């Protein structure tokens, strides 16, 4: 194989994370008020990969990373927006979105699955 150096999109002198092949890396998840939904994303890698899961928690087209903090989180409180939890096995990435609000909600969940081991 001949490499055209002018087409290289990056340069690295160190190791890097290789993404699993996938055309679409998000799903829209709809929940009823106070409801939850679980989705499963098959990766079929045969090992537990490194993954990165984020979501448009505020439903305004903004992808959030990190714990979305709010006043009152020090005590007992009900979050103002949906929450995501996820876990990954050798075949699937499972994502649960829960909706603590009194209105139905649709959250777009993004997932990057890497071929590398966690």
């Amino acid at each position: 194989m001949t490499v055209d150096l002018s087409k290289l999109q990056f340069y690295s002198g160190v190791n890097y994370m290789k993404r699993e092949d996938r055309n679409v890396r998000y799903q829209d998840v709809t929940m009823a008020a106070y409801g939850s939904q679980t989705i499963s994303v098959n990766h079929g890698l045969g090992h537990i990969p490194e993954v990165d899961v984020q979501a448009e928690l505020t439903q305004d087209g903004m992808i959030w990373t990190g714990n979305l903090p709010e006043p009152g989180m020090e005590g007992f409180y009900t979050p103002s927006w949906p929450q995501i939890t996820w876990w990954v096995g050798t075949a699937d990435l499972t994502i649960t979105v829960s909706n603590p609000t009194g209105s139905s909600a649709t959250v777009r969940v993004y997932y990057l699955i890497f071929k590398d081991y966690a």
Partner: protein
Amino acid sequence: MNHDPDILQFVSLDEIDKVVAVGSILISNGGPSGTSYATSGRVVEQVRTNTYGKKCIVRFRWTTNYVDYNSPDAIPGYAFTVDATAWGGPVSDPLPGVHSAVALGCSASQIKFRTYNGLHGNVAYTGTAMSPGPDSFSGVPLDFYIEYALVEVG
């Protein structure tokens, strides 16, 4: 940037994370205030324009002391006491508090930086048990330094 083919480390057909923007920001958050320590945490947000113009996944790290950097989902804790002697009660054992937290959001037009500062000193109840007054405590200001990179969703 010129590539030196002699030091290229690999050739790969696998897709990788494509970083499209990097930056840092300093946000001052004055810390808790109010009449109840349990609901006193302060949120301070700042917004920047997303000049890339597409929604991105954000990677970031953050610190409040420029020494210890936290992961995005970190929620560092600390301890404080509640002095209830004004109500005829005891001084509590150390209680857990939320020190700080950070989240970053990225839309096609904006990058939003959201900081939470929950750090306060020890708390003293005021008034009496029959006629409670506001909690007495002092918030501790924190400076949040955040380093971030925008990564294409792909």
